[in-house]
């Protein structure tokens, strides 16, 4: 099955986020004074072929731990959805 995984990487709550603070300042300057906090992060989208959703989730989690997020400063959240069957083997070798 082919899956689409979205990975949201954000700084841990205890880590200061200068970019988020700067964006908040910009929003306040524009008059959006109700904004009390902004946290900036990264958004990644992967497409992958795995046998089932559990396996896909486990693989993406491993990717996040090994590379996509730095556990010292970042948290991550994964959202996964099936997007259909991958191209058939015969099609690919053709």
């Amino acid at each position: 099955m082919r899956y689409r995984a979205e990975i949201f990487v954000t700084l841990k709550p205890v880590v200061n986020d200068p970019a988020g603070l700067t964006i908040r300042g910009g929003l306040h300057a524009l008059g959006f004074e109700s904004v009390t906090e902004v946290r900036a992060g990264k958004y990644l989208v992967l497409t992958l072929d795995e046998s089932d959703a559990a396996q896909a989730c486990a693989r993406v989690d491993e990717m996040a731990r090994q590379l996509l997020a730095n556990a010292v400063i970042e948290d991550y959240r994964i959202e996964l959805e099936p997007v259909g069957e991958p191209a058939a083997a015969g099609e690919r070798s053709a």
Partner: protein
Amino acid sequence: MVFPGTWSDRDCAHAVLDVLQEPVRYIDHREQNVDGLELVILPGGFSYGDYLRCGAIARFAPVMEAVADFANRGGLVLGICNGFQILQEARLLPGALLRNASCEFRCEWVHLRVEQSNSAFTLDCRPGQVLRIPISHGEGNFFADPQTLDALERNGQVVFRYCAPDGRVTADSNPNGSVRNIAGISNAHGNVVGMMPHPERACEPLLGGSDGLAIFRSAIHALTRVAV
């Protein structure tokens, strides 16, 4: 060590070869070993475009496995700026470097207080000595959780702190928001050091100062001592 995007390799070679008259070899990121080397320098730059996170991709370069083995065997490793970021991503040094608190790239001379002279790169310094060395980075804001910080302090692994010219560690002298003004740290054995400031850019009076030489000279003396 030269990764795609490394930019301070020639400056480091200049300091070691031209100024200190020690032999230098450029190590390509695709090499498989660092045999025969006594000191490995990971210079500053923007390895792999700093994509994802500074140093995150360089950690997987073929040569990094050899560097990790070298470091774990007690080999001397100095990571400067982006090299420091790479050593953290490779987990050879603790903590991480965040975006500067100002969100600005800072390129200026700073003062560093040497916190301890046990690391291989501060043997020639005395604790409390102030070095004047430039910084040049956008992401040098040192971060570690409180337990890690306390362990670093307790083990004497905090090597340099940003300070005023007279050595006082003040908020005003902190150029990037680093926690506890930390500018450089070592591993537990003191053979691996990472620092944001660029000692290779302060290696002769023509460049505006030569305080950075103390760091390279310390390493040379550490090697001589090991050899004896």
